[in-house]
């Protein structure tokens, strides 16, 4: 093993199809037009010395180290800013160039500390490398002059101060405010790479160069600390820095890594590829991988830095059992835990019937781990009571897109956004929820693409540095269908339909029915404006822009799906895309931004109770028989229970045992009190997780889990991209998660024999036509593939529905707006909607156990100043949040980001108990809960509610672990 080395080509890849040929150092090289001479040289293996250039950002031409000679041209142009052209003859090294470069380096080094041996960048310093490359042997200027290096400085001759006692005004202390990296200005060479990375790659514009000439300094905001500035801690600047100026604190603490493996982030559905850089089994840092096709070398604060939870003191490493949830936990061996759980589950089946147990697969675990859990349930339990957390997030996406297009997934790859002309974001907050995609989107918006945002809140993307939405439609929560149908009304009645596309690709008669429906006057923006709160003029303008602005791409999130009409909204989105011809090529499409790292994969792997892997209904005899033959067991042909149905059945007494793999249903599912009642009613709950999560408070068996760093497998991201997860350390709990499931299955009498996850993938490929070509060997060879990957598409499918829809003809469906039954009234006059924040992830189980808490230590309730004033609530005050389902308390944040009448909070902290408030209304098709609309009232409060205090006490009691008795002889 060694470090995975990535070549820095110095300037970004040029995308021109026209090629040019030039001669560099006597060799002929052909590159796309627009390629820099520096990059062309690197492509043939010649590294021209450089400091300010790196291929993640555009050329800048400031360091003067990369000079070359071009025959027939005067002077020594910078190779980073000079484009390659046909016929150029370039020399990268001769006496003249060497002398100039050496002179430049000498000046740099004359104002740089010479503590190389003890410097954190020792072994990974481009300045040191370049000093070596240019043959610098001596610094004639000395170090006594003006500098940025020393806190105190020697006075100039003629001054009569004693040496070393003058304050050096140029010197600045280290900024250690960010929890993950330090900024040491004394080591800065002002190459601007960090500033440009913040602008070009991340798009936050938090950094600048303040001052001029010798006074030039990298400055977060207006000379603020990194933590106090707009910096979002994505790490792009740290990665771009060629010296030790910006350095990971983990590298400072541990030292330089010695080997690395390419793996996939276990946070959101973007699926960034990282190099896990190691010393032995210790993780030194995570560095985004430039060949990662989802992230293209970028990262966010979570994937880049927030992996400390893997070593958190609260992580449970031993299996535990208990008879009653009021007992303390007993640590036991794996075998004891497996047998205890198996005996309980078999006992429940004997007493309550075969269908009285089930399981929930994790959208955080690998495809292979999910596959074996659903296999255990279908083949081992003998029923189909399997569901996954997609139930509570994107199940309407599956229903809506499979009904209209024929596949349960997004249509594009992330690269597609680079060719979009109009981007419509509906109910998604990508800068917080999917930050790396947001950076790629913002880059495209800065280059001129137009933006429409449909969201009750004024999210960051509506207006941020160099990005401004052309139209923001701040609709009332729950009125998505009315707004999208009104957009369709404008498109149809104003003759903006792409008729050629619809005639060729879609069912024409269904289209006609739909067009007649949306054209009804009652669906016009003017007629629906009263319900939706959206200005009809803005809506009309937005619809026109989307229909006529070129490539139109729709990106949406849980603000679409988590409603009573979630599935109908997805259908309305699909209708809009078809009517405007925005399907089947790069730059367009319908793109669900999926929440968890492997939620797409867990759906693909047959985690829904009615579907076998590959989205095939369990009642289909031909498909089921294939699985029966492979698994050597008779399968149940009836659909099983979905998560909310499991809770209902538990309260009723017909569902008594649940195996939960990596999911905290108690914190994440709606109406906590009902979930508590359901879990309390069950005879055996098995929680398989890293931590004693909230659900574990009601569990009888705890199987400790392994982190993504500790296992092999694959994740599938929101663009259907299947990527490898590679084991870089031994599981601290002793077993990889798939091995845990196998152990439990064996105790239950259903033995599965796999010696490596690759064998599980082989079985998936054999049983699932869209995965037929997928294997670990293929992924190791090509990096990643997007399903369908089979004989027809051996390297996968970046864009779907190119020549026609998977289902045949695209299906237009009627989308009648039905107001949710969760209504405001005199008792509950405000609408609560929920969301998330950049630094935290989902229920926060991982991110709360990292330094990310410095950005978000508690969930706050956002409310408009008008609503706050009427209730006497001030910023920071505790307030009581009450709905028909329950009440909780949290502190207020007064902001105009939410409209009057709408309040908002996140759900990252268990003490907030946001889901005590949310109701059990759910999507009509999939039972996806309506998290996004709850009628509430708010009043000032003194602190936590009685429920919160009781809950905390129960949780504390429940987490007790018995101290082991002395070993008996």
């Amino acid at each position, binding site marked *: 093993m060694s470090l995975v080395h990535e070549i820095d080509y110095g300037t970004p890849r040029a995308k021109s199809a026209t090629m040019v040929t030039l001669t560099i150092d006597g060799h002929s090289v052909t590159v796309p037009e627009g390629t820099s001479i520096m990059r062309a040289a690197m492509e043939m293996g010649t590294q021209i010395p450089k400091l300010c250039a790196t291929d993640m950002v555009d050329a800048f031409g400031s360091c003067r180290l990369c000079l070359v000679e071009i025959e027939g041209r005067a002077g020594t142009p910078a190779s980073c800013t000079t484009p390659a052209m046909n016929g150029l003859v370039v020399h990268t090294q001769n006496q003249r160039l060497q002398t100039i470069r050496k002179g430049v380096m000498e000046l740099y080094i004359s104002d740089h500390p010479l503590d190389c041996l003890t410097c954190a960048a020792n072994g990974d310093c481009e300045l040191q490398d370049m000093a070596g490359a240019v043959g610098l042997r001596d610094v004639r200027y000395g170090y006594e002059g003006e500098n940025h290096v020393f806190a105190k400085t020697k006075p100039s001759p003629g001054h009569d101060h004693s040496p070393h006692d003058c304050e050096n005004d140029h010197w600045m202390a280290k900024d250690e405010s960010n929890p993950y990296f330090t900024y040491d200005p004394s080591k800065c060479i002002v190459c601007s790479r960090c500033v440009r990375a913040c602008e070009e790659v991340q798009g936050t514009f938090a950094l600048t160069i303040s001052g001029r000439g010798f006074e030039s300094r990298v400055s977060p905001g207006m000379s603020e600390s990194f933590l106090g500035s707009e910096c979002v801690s994505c790490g792009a600047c740290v990665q771009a820095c060629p010296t030790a100026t910006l350095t990971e604190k983990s590298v400072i603490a541990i030292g330089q890594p010695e080997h690395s493996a390419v793996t996939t982030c276990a946070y959101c559905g973007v699926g960034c590829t990282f190099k896990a850089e190691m010393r032995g089994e210790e993780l030194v840092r995570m560095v985004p991988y430039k060949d990662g096709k989802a992230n293209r070398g970028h990262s966010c604060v979570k994937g880049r830095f927030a992996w400390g939870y893997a070593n958190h003191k609260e992580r449970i490493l031993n299996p535990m059992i208990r008879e009653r949830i009021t007992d303390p936990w007993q640590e036991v061996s794996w075998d004891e835990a497996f047998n205890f759980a198996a005996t309980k589950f078999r006992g429940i089946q004997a007493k309550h019937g075969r269908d009285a147990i089930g399981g929930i697969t994790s959208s955080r675990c690998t495809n292979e781990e999910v596959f074996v859990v659903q296999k255990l349930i279908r083949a081992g339990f003998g029923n189909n*009571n399997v569901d996954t957390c997609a139930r509570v997030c994107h199940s309407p996406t599956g229903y809506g897109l499979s009904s209209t297009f024929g596949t349960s997934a997004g249509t594009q790859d992330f690269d597609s956004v680079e060719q979009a002309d109009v981007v419509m974001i509906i109910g998604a907050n990508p800068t917080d929820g999917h930050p790396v995609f947001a950076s790629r989107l913002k880059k495209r918006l800065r280059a001129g693409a137009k933006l429409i945002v449909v969201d009750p809140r004024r999210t960051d993307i509506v207006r941020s540095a160099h990005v401004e939405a052309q139209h923001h439609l701040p609709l009332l929560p729950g009125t998505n269908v009315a707004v999208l149908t009104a957009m369709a009304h404008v498109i149809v009645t104003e003759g903006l339909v792409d008729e050629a596309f619809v005639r060729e690709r879609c069912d024409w008669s269904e289209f006609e029915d739909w067009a007649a429906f949306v054209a009804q006057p009652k669906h016009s923006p003017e007629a629906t404006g009263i319900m939706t709160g959206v200005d009809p003029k803005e809506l009309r303008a937005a619809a026109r822009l989307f229909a006529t602005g070129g490539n139109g791409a729709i990106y949406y999130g849980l603000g679409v799906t988590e409603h009573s009409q979630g599935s109908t909204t997805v259908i309305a989105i699909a209708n809009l895309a078809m009517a405007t011809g925005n399907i089947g090529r790069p730059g367009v499409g319908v793109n669900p931004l999926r929440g968890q790292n492997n939620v797409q994969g867990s759906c693909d792997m047959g985690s829904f109770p009615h579907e076998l892997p590959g989205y095939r209904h369990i009642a289909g005899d031909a498909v089921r028989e294939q699985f029966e033959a492979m698994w050597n067991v008779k399968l149940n042909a009836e659909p099983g229970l979905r998560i909310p*149905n499991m*809770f*209902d059945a538990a*309260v009723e007494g017909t569902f008594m045992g649940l195996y939960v793999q990596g999911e905290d249903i108690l914190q994440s599912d709606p109406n906590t009190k009902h979930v508590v009642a359901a879990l309390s009613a069950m005879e055996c709950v098995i929680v398989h997780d890293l931590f004693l999560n909230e659900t574990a408070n009601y569990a009888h068996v705890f199987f400790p889990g392994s982190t993504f760093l500790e296992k092999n497998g694959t994740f599938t991201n929101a663009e259907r991209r299947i990527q490898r997860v590679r084991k870089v350390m031994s599981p601290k709990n002793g077993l990889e998660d798939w091995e845990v499931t196998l152990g439990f299955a064996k105790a239950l009498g259903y033995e599965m024999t796999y010696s490596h996850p690759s064998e599980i993938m082989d079985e998936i490929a054999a049983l699932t036509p869209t995965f037929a070509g997928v294997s670990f060997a293929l992924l190791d060879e090509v990096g990643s593939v997007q399903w369908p990957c089979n004989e027809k598409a051996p390297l996968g499918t970046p864009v779907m529905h190119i020549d026609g829809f998977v289902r045949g003809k695209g299906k237009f469906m*009627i989308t009648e707006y039905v107001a949710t039954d969760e209504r405001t009234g005199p008792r509950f006059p405000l609408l609560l909607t929920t969301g998330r924040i950049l630094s935290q992830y989902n229920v926060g189980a991982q991110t709360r156990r990292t330094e990310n808490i410095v950005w978000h230590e508690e969930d706050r309730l956002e409310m408009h100043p008008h609503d706050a004033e009427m209730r006497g609530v001030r910023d920071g005050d505790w307030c009581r949040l009450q709905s028909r389902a329950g009440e909780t308390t949290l502190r207020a944040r007064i902001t105009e980001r939410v409209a009057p009448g709408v309040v908002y909070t996140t759900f990252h902290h268990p003490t907030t108990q946001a889901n005590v408030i949310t109701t059990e209304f759910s999507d009509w098709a999939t039972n996806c809960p309506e998290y996004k609309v709850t009628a509430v009232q708010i009043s000032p409060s003194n602190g936590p509610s009685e429920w919160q205090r009781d809950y905390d006490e129960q949780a504390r009691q429940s987490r007790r672990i018995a101290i082991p008795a002395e070993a008996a002889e």
Partner: protein
Amino acid sequence: MTQATSPDRLIYMANQIGTFFRSQGADKAVPGITEHIRKFWDPRMRKAITAHLDAGGEGLDPPVREAIAALKG
């Protein structure tokens, strides 16, 4: 509706499904509802809603009643 006692919740869910399929056109409503319930509801839920219909079917919208009756077939 926040009280999740069966069969109230099932009636509510069935009517929600009914509302969607009713909007798809009169001829599609009953088969659409039947198919949806058959595809996505586990047997104990189907049994409970059928039993509720047999007991008079209070609260079920007209096409939903018809669709549930068709479930038995």
